[in-house]
């Protein structure tokens, strides 16, 4: 690993590393134009249009003024460049503000005010309370005698609770004068992106005698953008100072490095549009080749006779290419230049609608929903799989201590609340040793910081909600954690003060799944190891003779109720044992390489022979509306997978509670498990077989798999599992790691499903980024997930609205907008093609340049943009009939066949416009400018009516845009008609005076729209789609029929694929079917005895537990 050495307070070594200037800018003043153009031209569409625009500069082949392509092209480029420039300018401003911020820095032993950008690596920086940290620092001194301070890291991870940062041992007790002249060296790895780890060492130079290497961890550092906070703490200390030492600076800071521009996601709709664009491009090539050939043949046979054309006898070598190229230019409008801009615009508005939505505003946390990715709203409407986290996503992540089991005695079983259990209260009051020990562990074994407010009440700041619940519960049991000053800790038990000295904290990691503290009881000087953790992490550490059976039972029982369990244990340490271990621990802490792993290994040495003392059960309540949301979304045809790190039983309970799976006999759970590969495979195949057979039955099947089996499956049996994934509508994956979550998302994506991943914590980030759509819940676990996500919402229940309302509308609107864009471009292009048969296939453009440009950019682009307000069904109707989402999922509104419809319509309309125009304006009226304006008017009229007939609802804005555009067309053309040098001088006025003009245009509309209207009416009434029926039902305002009958009908028909197999009961017998019931939790003891005893081939819970013990030990 690369290392760097930072010399403290040494000006000579400063220039080794970059200064603290931060720059988030993408461009500079000089490279903006080339760089931006380069980025824009990486898109195929833009390259295509540039090619066309360049070809148009060749006057021999251009049918129109080059301005007709250059104009829109430049406008489009200017729009996106301006947006980029504006964003970049804002970034520049915020950089500048940060760079020029004044900070106190020690130079030559004196404190000076300098700008933040001039901080160099090795400088000593002074900060005051509420200052923002200007760069990554190592703490070397604080105003507090214990050498601690508090920071808020919300800008980094969104967690608003305060975190403690401590001065490294070597620097403790240094006076502020000494800190001015301190010298030393810090050895640390090169900057990386990980904001949760920092492994370094510090050695001070004389006169600071401590020659030991002093280990540095993340708790000795302060990262850029954090804030120094501690108002409550600062009572008595007027100015709270803290000295920091710069380690990384500028763009090398961890925050700077973890910023990254994510890969743009492509929606299914985008992919379809790209495909259609490709098809149109091919069609265009064919047209160009055919017309090019025809043109060359016509030229050689006919045009030579047309003496007035004066074709030269032998043309240049490229003569054969001229006509095809002309047609290429003429047909280039087939691919609408405006589609990209229009789509970007409406997508931006969809995203804004999500941000603005009041019904998705979370009043509890006062968070609005936010669409960070503005480009993928349509995908929301096409989601097929939702992969959801459990804790904090489905549940509130608001932990409440409910029950506990201390040495086999259950508390809180009757009342459902242990804190109200008189037995427990009495036991605490009577100082029953076990109970006191239990509560002590609850109080001491954590990283909670107590904060005393001015009024004297104590509140707790905790990173883990479980710890918060435990400490609060202990306080209610009269064991109050009063203060934690550095290593000393005070507890008030029933009015008497107890002091402990914290010697070491063996931190929690997701691998270890437990944490411990080593404390010294100040009364009797005994050294104690207090541990808490997941059952499979603690129970194997029990001392040899202890009966762990009661605890296993307790864990089982609580898990059945959907409670989160923690096992508590302790042991007394001998002084010499501790001293020896402490030495090893210190060494491990100061390693630079694999520190985490080494620490875990050392912790393992101490954590054994524990006396297990009890189990706590914490309730994590379901969020409001979760069952309804899942029910609705499942009706909408969305499949749910639950991926959780929690225990299987807890997961199943929660799944039942949220309608995730149905209870017997409607639903059935299939378990995949096993320790070895063979067992897993057998189990997997059995489940798959059952699934295949039962898929014809109207039954909710769900499979349950745990992380261990999943690991084997993902490695070895991917294909089988993929088939299972396709068959199964529901799955519960428990004990899965973040990377497994991401792998599952990838697996579903590889089956071409649209996936949505929703989660709230850092462990969901990978899955959220992997999925087509990532939704983060801005919850209690911080904003990590919400920041990584495309959408962040406050509550799980908003997902329903996000998908059914926003997703669906976005899909419908984009489907219309994109196809319409092609339609209008094809329309005008077909007219040009027809005209070429009347102009000797020479590639003359019927329309003049101004008309062509304005047609694409104004006349046909603006009215259709109001589609962002179009609603085919009211939100209420959609919510009541979520099945309607199937239309979006199946892509029924935008697919090759609907596109063919639009293609046909444009062909028909082009024929109508062209034929009527050339017949009405024949003979003496056949003047080029007039005829072209009549045809253009026909197109504009048709456009207006097409938009009108396809729009479902009209607000004032739509009326304005459609009819205003109409007026604008006449206004603009009249305006151009007043310019004498323009080709169409006076044309519009002449036309408007001719009755035949109006008669012709009305005829075009009638012939063009009549069949469309008739067909639409016929389909609407006699071949109604579900959307139509619901529209009609909405109108009739009758009670919106009950869904019950409909739903059952849907389900039975859905599954009515094959006749039921008679042999299936045989298989079903051999499958574990817990008699799950959501409404009344059955007596757990009977359940447990039935489960494993009856179906012994299946892994009983007990053996599963033991298997995980052995695994755990093996791992460690």
């Amino acid at each position, binding site marked *: 690993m690369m290392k760097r050495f930072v010399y403290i307070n040494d000006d000579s070594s400063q220039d080794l590393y970059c200064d603290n200037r931060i720059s988030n800018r993408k461009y500079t003043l000089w490279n903006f134009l080339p760089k931006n153009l380069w980025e824009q031209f990486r898109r195929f569409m833009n390259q295509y249009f540039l090619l066309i625009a360049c070809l148009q500069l060749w006057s021999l082949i251009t049918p129109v003024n080059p301005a007709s392509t250059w104009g829109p092209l430049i406008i489009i480029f200017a729009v996106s460049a301006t947006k980029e420039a504006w964003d970049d300018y804002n970034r520049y401003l915020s950089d500048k503000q940060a760079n020029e911020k004044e900070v106190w820095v020690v130079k030559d032993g004196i404190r000076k005010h300098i700008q933040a950008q001039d901080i160099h690596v090795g400088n000593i920086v002074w900060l005051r309370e509420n200052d923002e940290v200007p760069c990554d620092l190592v703490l070397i001194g604080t105003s507090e005698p214990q050498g601690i301070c508090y920071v808020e890291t919300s800008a980094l991870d969104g967690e608003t609770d305060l975190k403690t940062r401590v001065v490294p041992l070597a620097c403790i007790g240094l006076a502020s004068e000494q800190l001015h002249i301190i010298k030393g060296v810090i050895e640390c790895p090169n900057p990386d992106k990980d904001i949760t780890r920092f492994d370094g060492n510090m050695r001070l130079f004389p006169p600071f005698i401590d020659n030991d290497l002093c280990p540095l961890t993340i708790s000795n550092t302060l990262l850029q953008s954090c804030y120094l906070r501690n108002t409550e703490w600062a009572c008595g200390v007027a100015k709270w100072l803290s000295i920091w030492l710069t380690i990384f600076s500028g763009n090398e800071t961890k925050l700077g490095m973890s910023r990254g521009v994510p890969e743009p996601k492509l929606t299914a709709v985008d992919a379809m549009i790209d495909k259609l664009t490709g098809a149109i491009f091919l069609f265009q090539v064919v047209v160009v080749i055919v017309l090019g050939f025809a043109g060359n043949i016509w030229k050689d046979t006919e045009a030579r006779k047309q003496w007035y054309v004066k074709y030269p006898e032998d043309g240049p070598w490229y003569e054969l290419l001229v006509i095809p190229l002309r047609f290429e230019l003429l047909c280039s409008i087939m691919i609408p230049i405006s589609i990209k801009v229009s789509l970007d615009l409406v997508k931006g508005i969809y995203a*804004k609608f999500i941000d603005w939505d009041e019904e998705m505003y979370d009043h509890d946390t006062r968070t609005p929903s936010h669409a960070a990715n503005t480009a993928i709203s349509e995908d929301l409407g096409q989601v097929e799989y939702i992969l959801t986290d459990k804790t904090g996503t489905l549940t509130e992540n608001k932990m409440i201590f409910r029950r506990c089991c201390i040495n086999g005695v259950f508390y809180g079983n009757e009342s459902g609340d242990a804190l109200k259990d008189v037995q427990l209260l009495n036991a605490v009051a009577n100082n029953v040793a076990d109970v006191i020990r239990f509560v002590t562990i609850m109080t001491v074994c954590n990283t909670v910081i107590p904060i005393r407010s001015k009024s004297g009440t104590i509140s707790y700041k905790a990173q883990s909600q479980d710890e918060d619940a435990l400490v609060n519960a202990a306080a209610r049991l009269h064991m109050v954690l009063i203060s934690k000053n550095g290593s000393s800790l005070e507890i008030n038990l029933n009015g008497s003060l107890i002091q402990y000295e914290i010697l070491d904290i063996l931190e929690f990691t997701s691998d270890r799944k437990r944490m411990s503290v080593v404390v010294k009881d100040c009364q009797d000087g005994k050294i104690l190891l207090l541990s808490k953790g997941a059952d499979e992490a603690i129970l194997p550490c029990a001392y040899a003779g202890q009966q762990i059976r009661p605890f296993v039972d307790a864990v089982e029982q609580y898990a059945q109720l959907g409670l989160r369990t923690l096992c508590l244990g302790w042991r007394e340490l001998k002084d010499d044992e501790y001293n020896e271990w402490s030495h090893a621990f210190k060494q491990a802490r100061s390693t630079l390489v694999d520190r985490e792993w080494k620490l875990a290994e050392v912790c393992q040495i101490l954590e054994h022979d524990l006396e297990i003392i009890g189990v706590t059960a914490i309730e994590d309540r379901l969020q409001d509306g979760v069952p309804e949301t899942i029910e609705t979304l499942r009706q909408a045809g969305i499949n749910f997978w639950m991926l959780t790190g929690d225990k299987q039983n807890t997961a199943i309970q929660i799944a039942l509670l949220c309608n995730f799976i149905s209870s017997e006999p409607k639903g059935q759970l299939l378990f995949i498990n096993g320790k070895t590969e063979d067992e897993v495979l057998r189990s997997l195949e059995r489940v798959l077989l059952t699934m295949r057979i039962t898929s014809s039955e109207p039954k909710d099947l769900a499979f349950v798999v745990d992380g261990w089996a999943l690991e084997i499956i993902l490695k070895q049996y991917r294909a089988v599992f993929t088939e299972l994934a396709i068959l199964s509508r529901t799955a519960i994956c428990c004990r899965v790691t973040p990377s497994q979550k991401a792998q599952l998302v990838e697996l579903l994506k590889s089956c071409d499903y649209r996936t949505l991943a929703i989660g709230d914590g850092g462990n969901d980030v990978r899955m959220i980024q992997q999925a087509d759509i990532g939704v983060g819940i801005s919850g209690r676990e911080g904003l990590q997930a919400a920041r990584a996500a495309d959408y962040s919402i406050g509550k799980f229940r908003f997902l329903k609205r996000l998908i059914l309302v926003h997703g669906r509308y976005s899909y419908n609107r984009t489907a219309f907008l994109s196809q319409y864009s092609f339609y209008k471009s094809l329309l005008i292009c077909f007219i040009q093609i027809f005209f070429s048969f009347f102009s000797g296939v020479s590639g003359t453009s019927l329309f003049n340049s101004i008309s062509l440009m304005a047609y694409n950019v104004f006349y046909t682009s603006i009215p259709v943009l109001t589609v962002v307000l179009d609603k085919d069904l009211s939100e209420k109707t959609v919510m009541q009939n979520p099945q309607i989402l199937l239309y979006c999922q199946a892509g029924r509104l935008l697919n090759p066949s609907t596109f063919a419809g639009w293609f046909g319509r444009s062909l028909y309309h082009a024929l109508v416009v062209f034929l009527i125009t050339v*017949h009405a304006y024949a003979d003496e009226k056949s003047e080029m400018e007039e005829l072209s304006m009549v045809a253009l008017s026909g197109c504009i009229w048709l456009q207006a009516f097409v938009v009108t007939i396809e729009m479902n609802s009209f607000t004032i804005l739509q009326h304005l845009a459609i009819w205003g555009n109409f007026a604008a067309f006449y206004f603009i053309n009249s305006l151009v008609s007043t310019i004498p040098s323009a080709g169409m001088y006076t044309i519009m006025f002449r036309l408007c005076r001719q009755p035949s003009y109006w008669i012709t245009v009305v005829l075009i509309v009638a012939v063009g729209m009549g069949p469309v209207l008739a067909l639409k009416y016929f389909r609407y009434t006699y071949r109604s789609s579900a959307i139509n029926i619901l529209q009609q039902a909405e109108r009739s305002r009758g009670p919106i029929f009950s869904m019950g009958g409909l739903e059952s009908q849907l389900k039975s028909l859905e599954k009515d694929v094959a006749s039921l197999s008679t042999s299936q009961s045989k298989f079903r017998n051999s499958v574990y079917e817990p008699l799950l019931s959501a409404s009344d939790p059955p007596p757990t003891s009977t359940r447990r005895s039935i489960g494993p005893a009856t179906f012994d081939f299946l892994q009983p819970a007990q053996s599963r537990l033991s298997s995980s013990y052995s695994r755990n030990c093996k791992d460690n």
Partner: protein
Amino acid sequence: MNPRGDSTSGSDGAAEPRRKSKKPKYSRFTQQELPACKPLLTPAIVVTAFAFIGIIFIPIGLLSLSASGQVVEIVYQYDTDCIPEQLQNDKVAFIQSSTTNKTCTRTLTVPKNMEGPVHIYYELDNFYQNHRRYVKSRSDKQLRSKASETETTNCAPEATTSDGSVIVPCGLIAWSLFNDTYSFAVNSKIIEVNKKNIAWQSDKEHKFGSDVYPKNFQMGGLIGGAKLNASIPLSEQEDLIVWMRTAALPRFRKLYGRIETDLAANEQVTVTIQNNYNTYSFEGKKNLVLSTTSWIGGKNDFLGTAYLTIGSLCLFLAMGFIILYLLKPRTLGDPSYLSWNRNPDGHY
């Protein structure tokens, strides 16, 4: 405040949502709740619409037809007719020869009373004034003002003479100016042909300059069409102005002049045609057309017929929908029609 900013566009909103209330401001627009009307295609509306179209269209169609019917039109195709019998086999040679007598006199009978002014058109067929090479070969600037005399970039191959001096008016269109002439007599009395104001007023005033005089026109080796009187400014050369309003279709009529007097029915009009213009090399037809006008323009039955057809079709459709509605009544919005769940489109 978070002055370090966020480089990614999304995160600035998510940075500190808990601190400030970011409750979206309520407005009907942001909540997508603007009052909207949702027109439905109910049978009543659709039938009414079609019936309405039918009822409006049929009278308009009848009016148009009658207007077109009132127009009296005499069309005489003279391209083959005006070539002597013995030269029929080599029409091109006839027309290109400078020695042959190209005068051709014919008598036309007026079918109905024609009220003056009677428009005289020449009609060319299979003549591609809209050919790309042709339609571009002009210089509007040169035509407009004397100052831009040298602006002949688009005029090739008729931009300059062989010695390099500028042709005014340049380009193929002007070069191929139609040069047949007609004169008319009724009962040996010559009828005046008014050739004033046959071009658009706007063209004469703004498109063709009054200070621009023809120069080096038709001086090249190959003579295209008519020559121009070099002493008359372009704004007065109305035949040229008419010709330069290019036609969009290969068959077109252009105004030659007007007969201001009425022509009575069965009158014999003697036409003397100078058949100069070469349409023979591309087998183009030449017609002489005498026509009156109405509010709808010249004789054109298309609009009237189309209106009648569409109008009756719409009425027929309206009737059909009524019958269909009576035969197969459907309650709109009846949930029992929600049949989509029976055909889930193979989605599962």
